[in-house]
């Protein structure tokens, strides 16, 4: 039950795009057509579901104050949390690279679909944002962190696909010239964000 709530919260209430604007750069770049949006969205779900738990383990067994105590008593006092940014981004960059290589080798079809998006993801704020929020929320178990990563990914996916669909349609409307393209995308995201505010405090 707690996990379902966590999932719903991370996907809808704390939606990466509408509540925090994470991953806006790639979001605006790919939300021109639904097809590319689905591709990048799927890649984000995939990468978030892997990187958040990995970073969770890193945080809890290496970086946090006292996290090194499994090595022995004398390490209990070590506090490496100042290194967390650099470790998280390194983990993300290498996992993205790894995933790219594995997918390319074992599933060429999937690689064809996700391939070009994977390199983009290393610098997608949503991924690092996921890791940093995980750190701040201090989840009790690794299962929570997997749920959180997956939920946030799904939320990002929903947002990018919805906006892409609207942007496809809006090409046939008379948008004031200066607002065309990026301007309209901002406005739309703002309105969608307002709609998503309706989920606030939503729990099962």
């Amino acid at each position, binding site marked *: 039950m707690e996990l379902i709530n966590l999932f719903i919260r991370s996907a809808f209430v704390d939606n990466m795009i*509408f*509540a*925090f*604007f*994470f*991953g*806006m*750069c790639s979001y*605006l*770049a790919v939300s021109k057509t639904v097809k590319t949006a689905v591709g990048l969205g799927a890649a984000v779900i995939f990468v978030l579901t892997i990187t958040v738990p990995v970073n969770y383990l890193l945080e809890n067994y290496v970086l946090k104050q006292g996290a090194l105590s499994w090595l022995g008593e004398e390490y209990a006092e070590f506090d490496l949390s*100042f*290194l*967390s*940014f*650099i470790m*998280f*981004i*390194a983990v993300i*960059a*290498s996992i993205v690279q790894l995933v790219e290589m594995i997918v390319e080798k074992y599933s060429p079809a999937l690689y064809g679909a996700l391939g070009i998006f994977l390199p983009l993801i*290393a*610098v*997608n*704020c949503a*991924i*690092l*944002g996921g890791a*940093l*929020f995980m*750190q*701040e929320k201090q989840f009790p178990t690794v299962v929570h962190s997997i749920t959180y990563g997956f939920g946030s990914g799904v939320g990002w996916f929903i947002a990018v696909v919805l906006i892409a669909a609207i942007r496809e349609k809006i090409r046939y409307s008379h948008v*004031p*010239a*200066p*607002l*065309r*393209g*990026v*301007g*309209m995308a*901002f*406005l739309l*995201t*703002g*309105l*969608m*964000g*307002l709609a998503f*505010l309706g989920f606030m405090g939503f729990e099962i």
Partner: protein
Amino acid sequence: MSEVAKREPLFSKKNKKLITDPLNDTNPVTIQVLGICSALAVTVQMSNAIVMSISVMAVLILGNVIVSLLRNLIPGKIRIIVQLVIVAALVIIVDQVLKAYVYDVSKQLSVFVGLIITNCIIMGRLEAFALGNKPWASALDGLGNGIGYGVVLVIVAFFKELLGSGKLMGFDIIPESFYEFGYMNNGLMLLPPSSLVIVAIYIWIQKSRNPKLIEN
């Protein structure tokens, strides 16, 4: 903006353009659409927006200079990771300094300081400019883009704070008598979506005044 150029007439015309272009024609936020994530989330108060802009500017200039100095040494294969490490290290320094000397602000910015790492402006400028240019030009490019980013941030924060809580920099601005006439602060302005709308309006105004930027 033009002030910077005037004060230092030694700058060549090309160098001046490095600073002035990002303010309008190639503004990183509104035209290149980079670095939105952190830009919009910290704009509820002017003071936060200013600290965030300064932090980004510092990281951007230093990152640009360092990458530019190392541009003939960095191995092509691990280029991206090297850039990420440099940026991440700079961001950690900023974060630690904020925590030690401006504690209140660091509390409010929380995770957003860390997100400077993935701020696309920084990676974008490192990759597109610093890797191929001399340190001095890279520093100016960093300064220009940093200011371009900061200007948008501060403008958004100005409207959000004024309309949302009737304050600027934490001081009450709207006189008490307005409230007595039934004026109300617009709580909606404090919520995330309103920043997007303000940026959209900003883009609208900017592009109407400068029609060559209009997309087809």
